[in-house]
């Protein structure tokens, strides 16, 4: 391909294409997680016993992770802010802070999984635990994907290319954050 098609540079709606596409990706993600959470809620309403299962989740670790994820969201906003001012050094630094937040989140998650599994709370113990592992696992997968994409974007930003992508990944990262805000009370707090 010698040059990019003209299509990629048009913006008839006035919204940049990348931002528009990320919003549509999120629309499809909302129904995926929304469907999962709805299924969980319908089950939960009919199974009082799940409250006892939920007691085994580590609320403190979950709360710490909520804090970590929210902080990393702040960093990605700062990265976007720096990218808008064309300050690539600062943008890259904040992107890496965000990735680090993702690392901490996944490390705490790994600790939780290990200790839960070692106490016998595996995926097969009950449907509550099946949902727990599926929902947090799917969310964790999104965190890891986000970290990977941020790493790729940071390499571009370092060379001063594709600065608009910082905003796109920021929108995505906020979404991952919001999903966790739903999962944390549903799986950890509600007893």
């Amino acid at each position: 391909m010698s040059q990019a098609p003209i299509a990629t540079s048009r913006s008839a709606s006035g919204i940049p294409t990348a931002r528009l596409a990320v919003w549509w990706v999120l629309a499809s993600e909302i129904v995926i997680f929304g469907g999962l959470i709805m299924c969980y809620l319908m089950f939960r309403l009919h199974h009082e016993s799940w409250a006892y299962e939920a007691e085994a989740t580590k609320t403190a670790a979950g709360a710490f992770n909520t804090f970590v994820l929210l902080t990393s969201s702040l960093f990605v906003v700062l990265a976007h802010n720096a990218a808008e001012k064309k300050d690539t050094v600062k943008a890259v630094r904040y992107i890496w802070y965000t990735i680090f937040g993702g690392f901490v989140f996944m490390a705490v998650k790994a600790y939780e999984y290990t200790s839960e599994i070692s106490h016998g709370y595996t995926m097969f113990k009950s449907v509550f635990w099946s949902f727990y592992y599926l929902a947090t696992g799917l969310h964790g997968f999104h965190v890891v994907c986000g970290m990977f994409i941020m790493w790729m974007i940071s390499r571009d930003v370092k060379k001063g290319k594709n600065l608009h992508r910082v905003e796109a990944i920021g929108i995505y990262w906020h979404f991952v954050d919001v999903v966790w805000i739903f999962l944390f009370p549903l799986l950890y707090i509600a007893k």
Partner: protein
Amino acid sequence: MSFWEKYVFSTDHKVIGLQYMFTGLFMAAIGGFFVYVFRMQLAFPGISVPGYGEVTPLAYNSLVTNHGTIMIFWFAMPVLIAAFGNILIPLMIGCDDMVFPRINRLSFQIFLLSAIILIASFFVPNGGFGGAWTSYPPLSANAEYNATPLGAPMWLIAVALEFVAFLLGGINFITTLMNARAPGMTMYRIPIVLWMIVIASILFMCSVGPLIAGAVMLLFDQTLGTSFYNPAGGGDPLLWQHLFWFFGHPEVYVVLLPAMGIVAEIMATMARKKLFGYKTILYSVIATGILSFVVWAHHQFIAGIDPRMANLFTVTTLLISVPIAELCFVYIATLYGGSITFNTPMLWALSFMVEFLIGGITGIFLGASGVDIFFHDTYFVVAHFHYTFVPIAIIGFYAGITYWFPKIFGKMLSDRLGKIHFWGTIIPFNFIFIPLFLLGAAGQHRRIWDFSNYSDLATPEFFNLRVIATVSLIVMISFQFVFLFNFIKSLRSKEKAPKNPWDANTLEWTADSPPPHGNWPELPEKVYRGPYEFSHPDRESDFWPQDEPGPDPDDPDYKSGYSPDSDIESSSTKA
């Protein structure tokens, strides 16, 4: 450019569209072969089917399941949405490509992978999955029930990958239509087929999410041994039915809308009349889309849902026929008083209306919960949804391909052969499914391998009807070779198609046939009016291309008595 670069790893939207189309047609041939095999078994139980052999019960289930799966997910969707969407969207909005050409290529590659996995699942031990395309647990979740320990997860993975491909493609379609339009291509100047394809993409996107989550749950039940759908382990099999049909019903409209869009384009052009009620169509389609999310439980009337809920879903199901009926009336109003050319695309478009109407009307019987309790899982249901899906997928495809063939391939199809193919398809089609309506109303159940085991279904009268259906099917399939012959003959003919053989208004007809990479040497500069200005009283020529400089008759300031000179003045003062 090398062959690989040009045809296999291309990012050009037209090539990707053709890749989708030919993969879809290849899959349709497999699905068509499957239906031939199991219809032979139903009409002549126990015979060795020519080209296949004896049909075992396990193989019968697998053939039926994969026939349904292939025809919906690997034929209707790739051909109607992905192929026509890819080819038409950039050409009709006056652009050189999609906004994400590489994501477009990726979406096809994932789709191809899903097709390969599905085909591979037919050849693993115990064969392909046989738990019906709806894949209800516990039948689909437990290998000891469905007897396909490998086929079932492979089927599920293939379907999930196919969803991913269409999510990527759909996002690309929506953003392209929103952002890559030529200047002047305002909301109400977009050809209606593009609206339909994009609304279908949005419907797909909003409905498939819960099923993706549900498919992961089913895959875990199958392979890891969780109990999401297993009542013994605290799960609920009904959950899958809700997730499946929450997707499955909007899916009907996902494939219906592009077909209706194709038909609208053809009708307006061939009747030489402005499409009646552009905005009415648009709003009806949006209403259909919204309503399609609240009708899903009409598939579950006998699944043990609350009767009060069944009443509610009966009402919503009957309501959704209102906007669809409105679309039909609007199309008829478009035809009314037009000067109609009965060429092949128009015949397909008109037959779509007639055949789909039968499908729609029989749907009202099934939507009423009281009647559905009797008809549920009979051949009445089979005949009903084939009267919707065959017009959508097969008639819709033939209408589209005969209409846009000159643009896509740069040659004209033979109208004579096209008409032979048309009648050879439409007549046997009705002879297949009218007998099935009768059999279904008489109580013939679906998913039975050999009716001779049931004395009340094994009467000679019933077998006669089954034989009529099977023989008609073979006639219909053999007439598809007429189309194949026509296709190859036209491609090899020396005569080139003109740029605009139908005198249509939309932008794709201003490009060369076939359009080169990049579509136009210079992209259309400006769009001046809507796509359906046919036979305008102020003009000598009976069509008015969208990109021809001049006034817009839909403009409130437009004055009749148009002359070319005043026209240039008014447009320059406006600019």
